[in-house]
């Protein structure tokens, strides 16, 4: 991002397949008044340019002209670097040094002035060359040893050998210590020393004197390894990209500038830091110069930016059209301080910093003219978006049944189970087949089918996902018992949620019963048993063999039939001889749940034509037993919780020991780890032990959950037969959740207790005063089961009282009975418009207002209630 752009005025490109690097560009005066630009590619092409040699008349900066090329020469060897200096003895003329991989040659540029307007004739002439013993990396030229008017060459090889050439004669070798990879090297004239970056990322400076003293011609320096003592070192801590030395002639100072991979450093000639700057971009190359005794640095970043710093302050930044590998400053005839950039493919450009900002212009918006029709359409679209997300439109949601049919078929025949299950004795190894048909009338984008049965039953597969559903699809599932425990219900729930092609989500659900023979086996009827339930019917009783036709065989008594549950417990259904009663009795209450469910559903099916047919239950609810089962469940759950706490404690302890171990490992004076190891092992064994216990307890918990859910299901059915008004029944249904889930932070008791409290405060409130108290809105963990028991028994009592009240009313007067319940239900309805669960979410503020309106309503309804009381009083 930049306001400005680099303006180039002269550019040329090289041939294809030529590559350039950092050292391939040289800007030098070469014995003239102005700078020449020398490029040398790694393919061995050397070019010397003199840009803008011919000034155009109108003072405009000219373009590239073929005459600007002074010399182009192709060498057989790749050129690694070019340098210039006074390299020929007894001659003050600047020569060019060309570094090939194994050869160093020095050339002189000869320019013969042309006689005609064809221009000058220039060519390079070889002065001398040195064969190199090792593959070269780079060279540095300078007046080593403070020699006057002479320049020497130092070549660094790839393996760290410095070779010094004093003009035509080869002087000495020296190998650098701690060397791995060659780095840029530079010469500080002021102290007559060399600086480079060593492979352990230090900047090292060697005196020329100590280098030449350490050198030894007789032995190969790579093996002799003379110890060269550096003058100073500076620990940089990162690898470098380039380093240069700039001599400030006015202040007689040397600036050593280093471009690291992340920072820019400037050191003085003694190796102490002048300044550093963190670069927040990856740099590519740089160049320094001194202007008015300030150090200026040009840095090219990887994102094609040129940044110019004075010290650490950013002075200018400009955008580049391409990424150069190296940058130089040149003094050309028409322009001082031109920037010369060379890309790796050989694009050479001379450029200047333009002060005219190149402002970023955003692409123009194309909505100039307002098209009202189009805008209206857009508005409608946007409104549509709002509507569909808010789901305000109720009308589209009703006709799901028309668009989609969901058929369930339960195959009555029982097959042998082929699936894996957890049953120990595979006596009852049955499964039954369920077929589900989905018949969509319109195409449906996505559909998900979920099949639910209650534990211990299991259904495979239990969910399906379809996308782009448009044809009739059917799916076959198998249901089988997973564990040998009691079964709370044989109901199979199928839920289908779809997203129609318009993107509207819908849901559909169906319930059916699985065949009883999947679970129950016939048994011998018993006369007496511990748990009994009596149900009365409004019509004449039907013989049991008619109802349970699949269990009927010869010799079956018409008045009694018995079943054996997977848990091995038996239950018997007896038909009252004289009255219209069925008696169900079983060893355990858990077995009865299924029997009641089956009996009632079969009776209802039988009498499906008769709308007034009713099955009712009037004796007291088995509150004690429910409490027993929930107590059992609660205890197991508590055990599980305590085990879980123990494990989490142990594992955090384990972690602490691990941490401590790490700390000990790092300690400067190592101490014995034996004791910690012992602790670690011990904790590990404890964790394993606790996990095993937890597994056992989880098994117990699952059994307790199933038992509890059996009992709750039974109670729910019994309450359902007590006929206490549909509103209240709905509330009770949502209170007693038959699916017993224990979440980590919330167990069944917590939820049920809160629901019970809510019931006691609202629908089952004894007095109106109770109703005015704010109902529970938060879940509390049940710690004391006696409170739970109290709530439970209160709820049962009040339910029963309600029933008896109604029954009395019914016996007294059939007609007003319906009216009688009105005041109650109207009040209930106010609460009952939502299931209980969702009401807890409503904040207390809402409740407050509800209370206010309730009290208002109470005043209005006051007379009605009084009437109700009087009718009762008459009795």
């Amino acid at each position, binding site marked *: 991002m930049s306001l400005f752009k680099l303006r180039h005025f002269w550019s040329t490109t090289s041939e294809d397949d030529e590559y350039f690097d950092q050292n391939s560009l040289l800007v030098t005066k070469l014995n003239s008044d102005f700078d020449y630009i020398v490029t040398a590619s790694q393919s061995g092409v050397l070019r010397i340019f003199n840009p803008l040699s011919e000034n155009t008349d109108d003072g405009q900066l000219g373009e590239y002209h073929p005459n600007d090329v002074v010399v182009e020469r192709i060498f057989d060897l790749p050129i690694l670097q070019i340098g210039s200096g006074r390299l020929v003895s007894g001659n003050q003329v600047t020569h060019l040094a060309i570094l090939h991989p194994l050869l160093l040659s020095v050339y002189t540029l000869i320019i013969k002035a042309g006689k005609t307007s064809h221009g000058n004739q220039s060519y390079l002439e070889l002065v001398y060359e040195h064969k190199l013993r090792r593959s070269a990396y780079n060279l540095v030229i300078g007046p080593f040893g403070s020699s006057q008017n002479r320049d020497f060459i130092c070549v660094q090889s790839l393996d760290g050998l410095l070779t010094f050439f004093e003009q035509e004669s080869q002087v000495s070798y020296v190998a650098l210590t701690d060397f791995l*990879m060659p780095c840029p090297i530079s010469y500080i004239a002021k102290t007559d020393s060399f600086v480079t970056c060593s492979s352990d990322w230090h900047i090292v400076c060697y005196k020329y004197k100590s280098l030449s003293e350490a050198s030894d011609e007789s032995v190969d320096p790579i093996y002799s390894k003379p110890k060269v003592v550096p003058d100073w070192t500076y620990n940089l801590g990162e690898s470098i990209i380039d380093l240069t030395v700039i001599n400030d002639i006015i202040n007689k100072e040397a600036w050593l500038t280093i471009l690291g991979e*992340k920072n820019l450093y400037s050191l003085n000639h003694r190796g102490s830091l002048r300044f550093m700057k963190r670069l927040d971009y990856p740099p590519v190359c740089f160049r320094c110069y001194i202007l008015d005794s300030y150090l200026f640095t040009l840095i090219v970043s990887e994102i094609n930016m040129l940044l110019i710093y004075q010290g650490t302050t950013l002075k200018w930044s400009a955008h580049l059209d391409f990424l150069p590998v190296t940058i130089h400053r040149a003094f050309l005839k028409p322009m001082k301080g031109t920037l010369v950039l060379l890309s790796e493919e050989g694009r050479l450009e001379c450029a200047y910093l333009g002060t005219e900002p190149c402002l970023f212009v955003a692409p123009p918006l194309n909505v100039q003219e307002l098209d009202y029709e189009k805008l209206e359409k857009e508005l409608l679209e946007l409104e549509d978006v709002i509507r569909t997300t808010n789901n305000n439109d109720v009308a589209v949601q009703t006709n799901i049944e028309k668009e989609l049919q969901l058929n369930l078929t339960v195959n009555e025949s029982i097959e042998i189970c082929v699936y894996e299950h957890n049953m120990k004795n595979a006596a009852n190894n049955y499964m039954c087949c369920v077929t589900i048909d989905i018949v969509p009338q319109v195409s449906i984008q996505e559909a998900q089918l979920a099949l639910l049965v209650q534990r211990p039953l299991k259904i495979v597969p239990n969910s399906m996902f379809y996308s782009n559903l448009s044809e009739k699809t059917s799916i076959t599932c198998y249901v089988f018992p997973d564990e040998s425990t009691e079964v709370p219900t044989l109901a199979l729930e199928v839920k289908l949620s779809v997203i129609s092609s318009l993107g509207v989500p819908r849901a559909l659900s169906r319930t059916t019963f699985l065949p009883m023979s999947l679970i129950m086996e016939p048994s011998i009827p018993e006369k007496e048993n511990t748990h009994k339930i009596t149900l009365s019917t409004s019509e004449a009783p039907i013989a049991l063999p008619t109802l349970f036709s699949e269990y009927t065989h010869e010799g079956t008594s018409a008045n009694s039939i018995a079943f054996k549950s997977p848990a091995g417990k038996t239950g018997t259904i007896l038909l009252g001889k004289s009255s219209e009663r069925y008696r169900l009795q079983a060893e355990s209450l858990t077995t009865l749940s299924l029997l009641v469910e089956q009996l009632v559903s079969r009776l209802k099916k039988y009498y499906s034509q008769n709308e007034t047919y009713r099955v009712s239950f009037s004796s007291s609810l088995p509150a004690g037993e429910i409490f027993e089962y929930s107590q059992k469940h609660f205890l197991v759950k508590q055990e599980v919780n305590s085990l879980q706490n123990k494990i989490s404690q142990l594992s955090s302890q384990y972690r602490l020991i691990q941490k401590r171990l790490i700390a000990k490992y790092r300690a400067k004076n190592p101490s014995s780890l034996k004791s910690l190891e012992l602790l670690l092992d011990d904790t590990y064994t404890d964790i394993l032990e606790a996990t095993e216990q937890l597994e056992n307890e989880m098994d117990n918990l699952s059994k307790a959950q199933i038992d509890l859910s059996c009992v709750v299901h039974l109670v729910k059915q019994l309450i359902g037969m007590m006929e206490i008004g549909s509103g209240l029944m709905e509330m009770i249904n949502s209170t007693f959740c038959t699916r017993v889930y224990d979440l980590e932070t919330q167990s069944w008791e917590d939820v049920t207790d809160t629901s019970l409290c809510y019931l006691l405060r609202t629908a089952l409130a004894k007095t109106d005063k109770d109703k005015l108290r704010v109902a529970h809105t938060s879940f509390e963990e049940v710690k004391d089961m006696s409170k739970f028991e109290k709530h439970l028994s209160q709820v049962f009592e009040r339910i029963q009282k309600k029933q008896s009240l109604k029954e009395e009313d019914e016996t007294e007067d059939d007609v007003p009975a319906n009216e009688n319940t009105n005041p109650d239900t109207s009040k209930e309805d106010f609460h009952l418009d939502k299931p209980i669960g969702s009401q807890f979410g409503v904040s207390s503020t809402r409740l407050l207002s509800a209370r206010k309106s309730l009290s208002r309503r109470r005043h209005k309804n006051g007379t009605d209630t009084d009437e109700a009381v009087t009718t009762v009083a008459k009795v």
Partner: protein
Amino acid sequence: MDPMYLALSLFRRRHYDKCIDICTSILDKQPLDQAAWCLKMRALTQRVYVDDLESEESPQDDVLDENVVASAPRPGTSLKSTSTAVPFTALGARPRTATGRPISGVVRPGTQTGRPGSALDRLKTSRGTTAQSARAIRLGTAAMLTQKDGPFIQVSRLNLAKYAKIKTLNKPLFEYLFYHEGDIRNAMELAVLATQHCEFKDWYWKIQLAKCYSALNLIRDAEQQIRSALKQHPHIESYIRLIRIYIRLDQPLSAISLCKQGLEVFPNDVSIMTELARLTEALNEPQSSVKYYRSIVIEDAMNTEAIACIGMYHFYNNQPELALRYYRRVLSMGAHSPELYNNLGLCCLYSQQLDLTLACFQRALDLATDPLIKADVWYNLSYVAIAAGDIGLAIQCLNLCLVADPTHASAFNNLAVLHHRSGKPHLAKAYFTSAREHQPELPEPGINLEVLQDA
């Protein structure tokens, strides 16, 4: 040409893949060529290198964090506590993020992770989170993918004690282990051995050790190492690392004093000043923050963060015209983002340049692809609608905002206010409640609910 020279040249020109190929062929011929091995290692490292100072992700609160100094810090000494004293201006309070910090002008490293509701779920496990972030893991796998015949270095078979003693190899090897392999444990072992070998004289190893420690969440050890490194050798990066560590320890005041110390050594350094400015901003001292940002701009006039933050300061200081100038400067530098156009639109709106307002927002909407940003643009457009007096349009804008981001608490609040004004108090109450649920720190919904309650 010597293949080694070519490899070095390719490395310098950032053609890392070609460089790796050449190094591989050298190593095929001479498996013990240390230079080629080292170069290949560095090329592999550079290829996946991410500046860990810029991309640092601060780990969320650790359950077993034993570094916490005070659970209830005094006001002004912690970055975590949400300050209750929100400075009010005529343009309303400066908005805050869902974690209660003032929203800053730019997106910075480590600020994107704090979306609400992400840290809570991990609390139950007993294993605390280590800072071995997803990035480190990703680097490791990315490197494996491109490697055809197995990993370049079998880290498990590496004799770290041997390599730690080779001065020329240990640093590249460390960076390879740390950045390329993401193997912090082995990298740390190497660093420990190396620092012992050089008799604790190389500050480089102390910083690297600190990097490992802070990645392993041993922050106090990291602090010690950096302190000792700084004693040996002042370096900007060391200062910044130490500052970050104090921020992680939630000791902003120590961090600030360290910044000032660092600025004495490196006067006018942009990186340290940026840290200082961010810190003061987080501590609710916008004036001093802007002071530092101004000095940053003097030193580095291209610093977008500083310009954007100064612009934002002016905006919330009732000077939208000045803010507009700063944002236009950022725009002319070439930033072309929906956020910027959004800010420009708001500045135009409040500085009464209404003709430009809608054009800016139109561009912001055209450019916005991220639903969160789209939500913000629609939210701001609702202000334009309110300024024009078009309540219906404002409601539509807010609805569209909620379509894009259903947890936008401020939008819920404003929607509630508008509905209340148009005579739907119940709907308003529901919206206020959901606004409060989505962002309990926001003061407006609570106050409004109280007002509704009293009425």
